[in-house]
C-alpha cells in the first residue's frame, strides 16, 4: 500500500513545477489545443491526438502523456459549450447535452446550463480519474464480467431506456432507436464486407461514399442544429428569448451540481464503467447517463425542454469515462475507445508496454498515476478558464439571431465536412436536417435515433460473436436474462406511469359526472 501511495504522490510531483516545469508547460499546450478542438464542431479528440502523435518522439513519457492526455481530457468539457449555446455539439460525445442544455439557453438560462455542464464535467473528470487510480489493482474481474451476449443486451438496454424515457411517446422512440440501428448498418457489413443499404440502385457510382457508413457527426448536426437554425431564422429573435442575470445563472448551475450530487455521482459512475468496457466509449456513456437522469427524475415531462438534470448527467458521464477508458488501455492494452486506441500508439512510440509493467510500483506505476493527475489538473485549469470567460460566452445567446445564422451554418457544414472531407456528408447534414425538422414538427423524439446509430456497430458485432459462440444458448445466460428483464421494465414503465396517472385522475371526473347527472 505504501508503495502505491508513494507512486500516487510521485505521479503528481512529476507533472507540476518546480520538479517538472517542462511537463506542466506541455500540458498547458495540450489543454489549449483540446480547448479549441472541443469548441470547434467536427474536430474530434481522436483526430487531434492522431495529429499530435508525431510531436512526442523527442519527449520523455511524462511530457508526452501530459501533452496528449491534456488535450484529450478537456475536449468533452469544452464540447459542452457549443452544445449548450448553439445546439451544435462540439464533440460527438457532447451531443446529449444539446437535448436539454440548448433549450435552457433558449429560455435565457445559458449561464445556468453552462455552469452545470462545466461543474458536473469537473466532478465527473475527477471521479473518473480516481476510479482509474482505485481500479488499477482490481480491474480484471470487472471487465471479465461482461461477455459478448451481455454487450449486445447492454446496447439494447441503452436504446430502450432512452427511447422509453426521452419523450412522451415510447413507441415512436423505439421505432427511432431501430432506425438509428438501421443507419448503423449502412456500409460494408463488418464480417463479409458486402455493401448493405448503400442505395447502389439509386446512386450508382456515388454509392461508394456510403460504403464507409453514415457519419455520426453529420447526422447529429443535421438532426439538432438545422431545426434550431430554421427556428432562429423564423422567429427573428436571439437564441435566448429572455434576459436573466448571467453570472447569477452560472452560480445557480454550479449549485445545481451539488444539489443533485447523487445524480452527478451516479452518472459519473456510469461514465467510468462504460469507459472501462472496451468499444462502448463516450458516445454511449452520455446517452446512458441521460437515460438514467430521466429515469431517476420524478418529473420526466421536463426533459427535452430544459431540465438541468439532462445537462448534469451527460456532463458528468462524458468526462468520467476519460478515466474509465484508460483502465483497459493501461492494464491490458485493450483500448476503451477510438482515441485511446490512438493513444496506444503513444505507448509504442515511448517504448512502453501496457500490462503488468504499467501497474508495478518499481517500474511505470508513477507514470500511470501521473495520467490520473493529468486528467484532474487539466480539467481544473480548463473549468477555471471557462468560468472566467463565461459571461462573454453567455452574451452570445443574446445577440441578434440574424448575426449568428451565417456563423452557425458555417459550423454546421464544416462539422459535417471535416470528418471525412467529403461533400457527401454535407448532403447527409441537409437530409438529416430535414428529418430532424420533421421530427420536431410531428412529435418524434430525436435522442433514440442517435443512440441507435452509436450502438449499432457494437450491437451487431456482439450479436454475431454471441450467436457464433453459444448458438441460441446465449439467451439463457443469467446476465442476459437480467438485462432482458430490465428492458421489459424500461418499456413497460412509461405505460404503467400513464395508467397510474389516468387512475389517479378518474375519481374526480366520476364525482363530477355524478353531480351533473
Amino acid at each position, binding site marked *: 500500500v505504501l508503495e502505491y501511495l508513494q507512486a500516487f504522490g510521485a505521479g503528481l510531483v512529476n507533472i507540476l513545477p518546480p520538479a517538472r516545469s517542462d511537463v506542466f508547460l506541455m500540458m498547458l499546450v495540450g489543454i489549449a489545443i483540446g480547448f*479549441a478542438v472541443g469548441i*470547434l464542431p467536427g474536430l474530434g479528440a481522436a483526430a487531434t491526438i492522431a495529429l499530435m502523435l508525431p510531436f512526442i518522439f523527442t519527449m520523455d513519457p511524462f511530457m508526452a502523456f501530459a501533452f496528449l492526455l491534456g488535450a484529450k481530457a478537456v475536449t468533452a468539457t469544452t464540447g459542452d459549450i457549443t452544445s449548450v449555446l448553439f445546439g451544435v455539439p462540439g464533440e460527438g460525445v457532447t451531443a446529449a447535452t444539446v437535448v436539454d442544455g440548448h433549450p435552457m439557453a*433558449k*429560455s435565457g438560462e445559458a449561464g445556468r446550463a453552462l455552469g452545470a455542464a462545466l461543474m458536473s464535467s469537473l466532478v465527473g473528470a475527477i471521479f473518473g480519474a480516481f476510479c482509474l487510480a482505485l481500479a488499477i489493482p482490481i480491474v480484471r474481474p470487472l471487465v471479465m464480467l461482461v461477455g459478448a451476449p451481455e454487450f449486445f443486451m447492454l446496447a439494447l438496454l441503452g436504446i430502450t431506456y432512452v427511447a422509453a424515457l426521452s*419523450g*412522451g*411517446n415510447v*413507441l415512436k422512440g*423505439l*421505432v427511432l432507436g*431501430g*432506425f438509428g*440501428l*438501421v443507419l448503423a*448498418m449502412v456500409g460494408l*457489413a463488418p*464480417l*463479409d464486407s*458486402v455493401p*448493405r*443499404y448503400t442505395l447502389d440502385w439509386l446512386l450508382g457510382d456515388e454509392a461508394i461514399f456510403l460504403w464507409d457508413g453514415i457519419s455520426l457527426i453529420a447526422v447529429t448536426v443535421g438532426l439538432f442544429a*438545422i431545426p434550431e437554425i*430554421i427556428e432562429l*431564422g*423564423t*422567429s*427573428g*429573435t436571439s437564441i435566448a*428569448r*429572455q434576459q436573466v442575470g448571467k453570472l447569477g445563472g452560472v452560480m445557480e448551475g454550479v449549485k445545481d451540481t451539488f444539489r443533485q450530487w447523487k445524480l452527478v455521482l451516479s452518472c459519473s459512475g456510469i461514465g467510468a464503467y462504460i469507459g472501462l468496457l472496451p468499444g462502448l466509449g463516450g458516445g454511449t456513456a452520455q446517452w446512458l447517463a441521460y437515460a438514467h437522469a430521466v429515469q431517476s427524475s420524478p418529473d420526466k415531462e421536463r426533459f*427535452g*425542454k*430544459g431540465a438541468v438534470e439532462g445537462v448534469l448527467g451527460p456532463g458528468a458521464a462524458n468526462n468520467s469515462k476519460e478515466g474509465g477508458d484508460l483502465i483497459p488501455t493501461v492494464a491490458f492494452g485493450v483500448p476503451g475507445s477510438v482515441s485511446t486506441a490512438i493513444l496506444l500508439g503513444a505507448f509504442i512510440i515511448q517504448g512502453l508496454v501496457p500490462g503488468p509493467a504499467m501497474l508495478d510500483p518499481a517500474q511505470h506505476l508513477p507514470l500511470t498515476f501521473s495520467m490520473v493527475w493529468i486528467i484532474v489538473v487539466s480539467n481544473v485549469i480548463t473549468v477555471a478558464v471557462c468560468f472566467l470567460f463565461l459571461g462573454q460566452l453567455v452574451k452570445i445567446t443574446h445577440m441578434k439571431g*440574424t*448575426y449568428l*445564422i*451565417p*456563423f452557425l*451554418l*458555417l459550423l454546421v*457544414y*464544416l462539422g459535417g*465536412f*471535416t470528418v471525412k472531407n467529403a*461533400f457527401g456528408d*454535407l448532403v447527409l*447534414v*441537409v437530409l438529416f436536417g430535414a428529418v430532424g425538422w*420533421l421530427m*420536431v*414538427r*410531428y*412529435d*418524434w*423524439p*430525436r435522442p433514440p435515433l442517435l443512440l441507435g446509430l452509436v450502438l449499432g456497430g457494437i*450491437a451487431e458485432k456482439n*450479436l*454475431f460473436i454471441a*450467436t457464433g459462440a453459444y448458438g441460441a444458448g446465449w439467451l439463457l445466460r443469467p446476465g442476459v436474462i437480467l438485462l432482458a428483464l430490465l428492458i421489459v421494465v424500461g418499456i413497460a414503465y412509461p405505460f404503467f406511469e400513464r395508467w397510474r396517472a389516468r387512475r389517479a385522475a378518474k375519481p374526480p371526473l366520476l364525482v363530477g359526472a355524478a353531480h351533473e347527472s
Partner: protein
Amino acid sequence: MSPSRAGRFAFAACFVLVFAYVLAEAIWGYGETFRRARLFPLAIGIPCLLLALVVLGLEARSGSAAPASEPALAPDPAAEPPLEPAVARRRTLAMWGWVLGFFLGIWLLGFTIAVPVLTFLYLKLGAGERWVPTLLLTVLLFVFFYGVFDSALRLPFPPGVLLEPLL
C-alpha cells in the same frame, strides 16, 4: 404552422418503408448470398417493422393536434407573441432556402469563396441588415474561417465543382 394529419401519417409511413426495405434486402438482396450479414438486420428489422406499423395505425387514428414531446419553449408571458401562420410559413421556407443555398454555394464554389459570398448575401438580402454590420460580419467570419480552418489547421478544402476545371 400546425402539423397536418396527412403529413404526420406520411412521416410515420416513411419508417414502415425503411424497415420493409431493410428486410427485403436482407431476405432477397445481399442476404441471399451473405447469410451472416443479414442476422442483425433481421433481428432488428422484424420487431421494428411491427412497431412502425403500430405507430402508423395510431397516427391514422389520431386527430391533427398532438402534444409535442420536444416543444421549443413553455409559454411565457414576456415572450414575443406567436407569428401569424402565413408569416411563419414564409419565413420557414425562406430559411430552408438559405440552408440549401449555403449547401449549394459550398458545393459549387467551395468553402473559401462561398463563406464570404453567402454570408454577405444572407445578411444583406435575407436579413436586410445595414451595410456596416453586413460588411463587418462578412470580414470577421471569413477571417475566422480562413485563419482557423485553412491557415492554422490546414484542412483540405476542395475548390467546388464550378471552379475545379479552372484550377
